[in-house]
C-alpha cells in the first residue's frame, strides 16, 4: 500500500465512494512524484478526463483520473482531481513519459490544458477540428471536414534542435505512411533522414479515430459489444471479453464455471491468431513471404471454426454481459484440436525457416531496443513489455477465470529488441495452446450465462410462454442491462497487453463514459524514440514488432 503517500497527504485527500483518492489539482504532481519515487508506483496505467455536466454531486464539471500500478503490478491506485473553470492543470510528463500522449488526448477530447506539457496539440482529431468532442455538449454526429494534413514541422523543428541541428538543409524529410504498406494502414511517421539513418522521428495517429468512446455513450451495454470487436480486430473476441469482464465487475456477478472456461478457450485462441497475424506481417515486411503462408493459413482455419461458432469470421461479437451468446457446437472439440494441430505445424515450419537464419538474426537482433525501465515508464505492456524482461502478465499478477490454476509459463525476453518481441509471441502461441488443452479437459457442463434475467436474456421458451419472460426480454433489449452507478476500472491481458476499460455507469442501461486503456496507444507513443538512430528498414520492423493495431490505437 502507498505508505509514504498516505502519511504525507492524508490531510489533503478524501476518498470517494468508489475508492479513488481525491486531491486538489495543485498537489497532483507532488503526490504522483511521491507515489513514483517513494511508494514505487512506477506504471501509469492510463489517465482520462470526465465531463460531469449531466451528473450532480460533483464540485466541478471536469475531473481527471489517474490510474497507477506499483512495481510488482499487484496494486492499483486511482487518483482523481477536479478541474476548476480555468480548465488547466499541471502536466505530469516530467514523471511519466507515457503521460505525453495521454494528456494530448485529454486536451483534444475535453479541452483541458496541461501546463508545462512539451507539445500540447490535438492527437486523435484533425488540425481543422473545432471543439472538443467528448464533452457532453458536443453533438455526437457533428463531423467536421478536414482539407489538409498536418505537416508536423511544429513537432519536428524542436526535436531537431534537441539533436543539435540548426538548419534543415543537410537532412531529407520523408513521410512513412499513413498510406504505406509497412505502416499497416493508418499510422504516419515523419522522419528526418541523414542518408538512410533516421535522426529524428515524430508520429501522427488518429487516422482511424472512429469515436468509439463517444458512441458508447449512446448505446446500451450489449450494443457496445460489436464496437469492441473493432478495437483490436485481429483478436476481436478478446475485446468482447475485456469489456464484458469490466461491466460484470460493476454488476458484481460471478460467471458460471462453463462460461469462464469458454472465455479462456476462445480468448487464448484469439491471442494465438492475433500473434499469428503480427508475426506473419512482420515477416513479410522482412521479405520472408513463405512464412506468411505458413502462419496465415492456420489463421484461416481458425476463421472457419469461429464462423461455425459465432457466424462471423472476423468480427464475432460472441460475448454478452454476463456470459456469451450461445454455447459451443457439437463437434467443437474436434475442430479445435484440428486447428491447434495446424497452428503448431505452421508455427513449427515458420520457425524452422527463421530460427537459425543469419539474415533474420541480423535484421532483428539489437534493433529497436527498449530497456526495462524505459518500457515501464512509457507504459508498454503485454508481449512488448515482457520482451524487455518484465514479467507482467495480468493472467498471473491478477488472475481471473481461474488462470492461476492453469499450468503455463510467461515468455520473457532479455534485450527488448525486435527479435525478443517476435520470439515472445512465438512462445506465447505455444503457451496459449497449452492453456487451451487444459481448459478443454476441465471444461464443465452447465449454464453459459448468469441466471439473472435482469442481466442475460431469458430462454426463448420463457419469452414466448410467459409474461415475465417477455418483459425481461423487452426491457433488456430496449433499455439494456441496468448497471449500478460506479466508477470502475478492470483489465484483462489482451493479445497486445493490458486491455482495460474504465467505465462510469449511472444506473441506466447506457454507460455515462467508457474509456479504453489501449495497449497499442502507449507502445505507439514510444515508437518514434525507438527508431531514432536506426535505419529506415529497421523502423519498418520495429513498428511491426510492436504490433500496432490502428483500431485500438485510435479508437
Amino acid at each position, binding site marked *: 500500500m502507498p505508505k509514504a503517500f498516505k502519511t504525507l497527504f492524508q490531510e489533503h485527500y478524501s476518498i470517494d465512494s468508489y475508492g479513488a483518492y481525491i486531491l486538489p489539482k495543485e498537489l497532483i504532481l507532488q503526490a504522483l512524484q511521491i507515489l513514483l519515487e517513494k511508494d514505487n508506483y512506477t506504471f501509469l496505467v492510463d489517465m482520462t478526463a470526465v465531463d460531469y455536466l449531466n451528473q450532480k454531486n460533483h464540485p466541478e464539471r471536469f475531473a481527471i483520473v489517474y490510474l497507477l500500478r506499483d512495481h510488482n503490478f499487484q496494486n492499483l491506485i486511482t487518483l482523481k482531481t477536479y478541474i476548476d473553470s480555468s480548465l488547466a492543470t499541471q502536466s505530469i510528463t516530467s514523471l511519466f513519459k507515457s503521460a505525453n500522449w495521454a494528456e494530448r488526448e485529454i486536451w483534444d477530447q475535453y479541452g483541458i490544458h496541461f501546463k508545462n506539457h512539451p507539445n500540447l496539440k490535438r492527437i486523435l482529431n484533425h488540425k481543422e477540428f473545432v471543439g472538443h468532442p467528448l464533452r457532453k455538449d458536443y453533438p455526437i*454526429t457533428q463531423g467536421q*471536414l478536414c482539407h489538409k494534413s498536418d505537416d508536423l514541422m511544429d513537432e519536428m523543428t524542436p526535436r531537431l534542435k534537441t539533436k543539435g541541428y540548426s538548419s534543415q538543409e543537410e537532412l531529407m524529410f520523408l513521410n512513412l505512411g499513413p498510406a504505406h504498406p509497412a505502416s499497416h494502414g493508418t499510422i504516419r511517421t515523419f522522419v528526418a533522414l541523414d542518408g538512410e539513418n533516421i535522426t529524428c522521428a515524430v508520429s501522427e495517429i488518429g*487516422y482511424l479515430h472512429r469515436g468509439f468512446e463517444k458512441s458508447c455513450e449512446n448505446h446500451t451495454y450489449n450494443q457496445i459489444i460489436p464496437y469492441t470487436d473493432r478495437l483490436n480486430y485481429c483478436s476481436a473476441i478478446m475485446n468482447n471479453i475485456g469489456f464484458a469482464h469490466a461491466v460484470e465487475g460493476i454488476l458484481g456477478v460471478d460467471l458460471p464455471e462453463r462460461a469462464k472456461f469458454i472465455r479462456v478457450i476462445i480468448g487464448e485462441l484469439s491471442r494465438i491468431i492475433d500473434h499469428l497475424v503480427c508475426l506473419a506481417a512482420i515477416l513479410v515486411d522482412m521479405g520472408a513471404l513463405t512464412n506468411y503462408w505458413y502462419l496465415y493459413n492456420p489463421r484461416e482455419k481458425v476463421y472457419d471454426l469461429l464462423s461455425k461458432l459465432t457466424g462471423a469470421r472476423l468480427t464475432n461479437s460472441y460475448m454478452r454481459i454476463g456470459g456469451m451468446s450461445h454455447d459451443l457446437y457439437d463437434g467443437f472439440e474436434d475442430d479445435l484440436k484440428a486447428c491447434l494441430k495446424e497452428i503448431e505445424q505452421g508455427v513449427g515450419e515458420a520457425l524452422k525457416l527463421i530460427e537459425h537464419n543469419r539474415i533474420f538474426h541480423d535484421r532483428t537482433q539489437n534493433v529497436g531496443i527498449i530497456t526495462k525501465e524505459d518500457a515501464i515508464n512509457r507504459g508498454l505492456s503485454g508481449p512488448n513489455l515482457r520482451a524487455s524482461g518484465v514479467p507482467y502478465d495480468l493472467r498471473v499478477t491478477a488472475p481471473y477465470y481461474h488462470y492461476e490454476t492453469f499450468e503455463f509459463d510467461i515468455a520473457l525476453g532479455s534485450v527488448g529488441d525486435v527479435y525478443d518481441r517476435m520470439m515472445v509471441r512465438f512462445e506465447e502461441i505455444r503457451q496459449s495452446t497449452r492453456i487451451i488443452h487444459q481448459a478443454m479437459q476441465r471444461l464443465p457442463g452447465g449454464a453459459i450465462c448468469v441466471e439473472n434475467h435482469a442481466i442475460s436474456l431469458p430462454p426463448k421458451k420463457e419469452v414466448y410462454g410467459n409474461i415475465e419472460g417477455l418483459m425481461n426480454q423487452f426491457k433488456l433489449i430496449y433499455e439494456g442491462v441496468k448497471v449500478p452507478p460506479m466508477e470502475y476500472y478492470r483489465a484483462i491481458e489482451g493479445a497486445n497487453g493490458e486491455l482495460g476499460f474504465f467505465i462510469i455507469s449511472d444506473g441506466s442501461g447506457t454507460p455515462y463514459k467508457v474509456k479504453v486503456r489501449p495497449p497499442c496507444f502507449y507502445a505507439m507513443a514510444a515508437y518514434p524514440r525507438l527508431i531514432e538512430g536506426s535505419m529506415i528498414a529497421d523502423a519498418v520492423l520495429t513498428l511491426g514488432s510492436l504490433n500496432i493495431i490502428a483500431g485500438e490505437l485510435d479508437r
Partner: protein
Amino acid sequence: MAVGAEAIFGESLITTKLDSAISWARESSMWPYIFGTACCAIEFMSVASSKYDISRFGAEVVRFSPRQADLLIIAGTISYKQAPILKKIYDQMSEPKWVISAGACACSGGFYDNYTTMQGIDSIIPVDVYVAGCPPRPEAFLDALLEIQKIQATQSLLEDRAKRVFKGVLDA
C-alpha cells in the same frame, strides 16, 4: 481525350476489335492498390492468401504506389482526417482507373454514425462498385472484382473516363 490509333479510326471495326482485345487484357490483369485502413483490410489479407487466392482472377499484383495501380480498393473506415489522403491517392492514379468501396464503413460510414467518420466515401471520390458487409467475406471481395471486370468489358477506348463529372466535398 482519345489518342493514338483509336483517335484516327474513330468508331470503326478496328476500334471495336481493339476495344475487346484491350478490355480482355485489362480485365485479366488488374493491379490493385489496397487502401486498407481497418478491419476490412484484415479480410483482404485472406483474399490475397492461398485459400481465396485473388491471383485466380489476375489481380494479385498488389501495388502500393498509386502510380502503378488501376484499381483502388478501399477497405476500411475513412475518417475525416483520412479523407484528404484518400483523395490524393485517387488523384495520383492515372486513367483508366476503377474504385471498389468495400465494407459498410467505406460505403456509408457503417455503424460509426458519429463526429469522426465520413458517411460514405462517394462524397470524396467516384465509386464503381460497392460491397456490403462488416467486413465483407472474401468471396464478396472477389465478386466485386468480377463486377469491375464486367464494367471494363463494356467500356470503349473512345470513352474518356477522366471527363466524368464528379465533384466531391473536398474538390475546391
